[in-house]
């Protein structure tokens, strides 16, 4: 399941929406808007997307991960618009019966999300300047 959202992501609420009695293992990835650029003062990150293609590609990622690993649930929520520092920009939750292969499934999911979804982020600095950012792999 995949969603693009404009409002803050509540990971506890998202977990509640997918949890099942048969899941003995649930893994979370929380991608957080951060102020870690060299000598800079980031106020927020702003996310933009080619939404129709993001949804299409995210569904392909879900099919690929579920086809490769014994994943019960894969939930991906990506926020768009302004995301202040320390708020969630990306949430990935994997639910499964057991932990075997789940760390690998989570890492591959996050990697695919960052490499393949047509989403772009811009740093908004406290002095009002802006800068498009690149992902580092």
């Amino acid at each position, binding site marked *: 399941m995949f969603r693009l959202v404009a409002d803050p992501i509540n990971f506890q609420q998202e977990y509640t929406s997918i949890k099942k009695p048969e899941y003995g293992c649930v893994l979370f990835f929380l991608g957080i808007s951060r102020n870690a650029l060299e000598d800079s003062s980031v106020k927020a990150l702003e996310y*933009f997307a080619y939404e129709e293609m993001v949804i299409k590609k995210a569904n392909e990622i879900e099919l690929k991960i579920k086809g490769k690993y014994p994943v019960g649930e894969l939930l991906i929520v*990506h926020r768009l618009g302004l995301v202040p520092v320390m708020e969630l920009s990306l949430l990935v939750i994997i639910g499964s019966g057991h932990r075997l292969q789940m760390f690998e499934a989570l890492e591959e999911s996050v990697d695919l999300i960052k490499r*393949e979804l*047509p*989403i772009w*982020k*811009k740093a908004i600095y406290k002095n009002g300047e802006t800068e*498009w950012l*690149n992902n580092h792999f």
Partner: protein
Amino acid sequence: MKIKVLFFGPMKDCTNISSREYDVHESFTLANLIGFVYADYPEAKDVLDVCAFVVNQEFSEESNPLHEGDEVAVLPPVSGG
């Protein structure tokens, strides 16, 4: 035939528009269209050099012909997550 072109991220900043339409002749290819975009936005050359061009949300060979109503998106390197 009419082709819609979408600009995203840094490319949208370079063009100051999110989309535009090109009216081109039949048998026009994706490579032809890319040439038009380079010609219309010379100031965006550095960004265009690292962009991918997708047709109707799918990666396509540049030699492929375009069709009436196709949507071509100009995608700078992505940075989601």
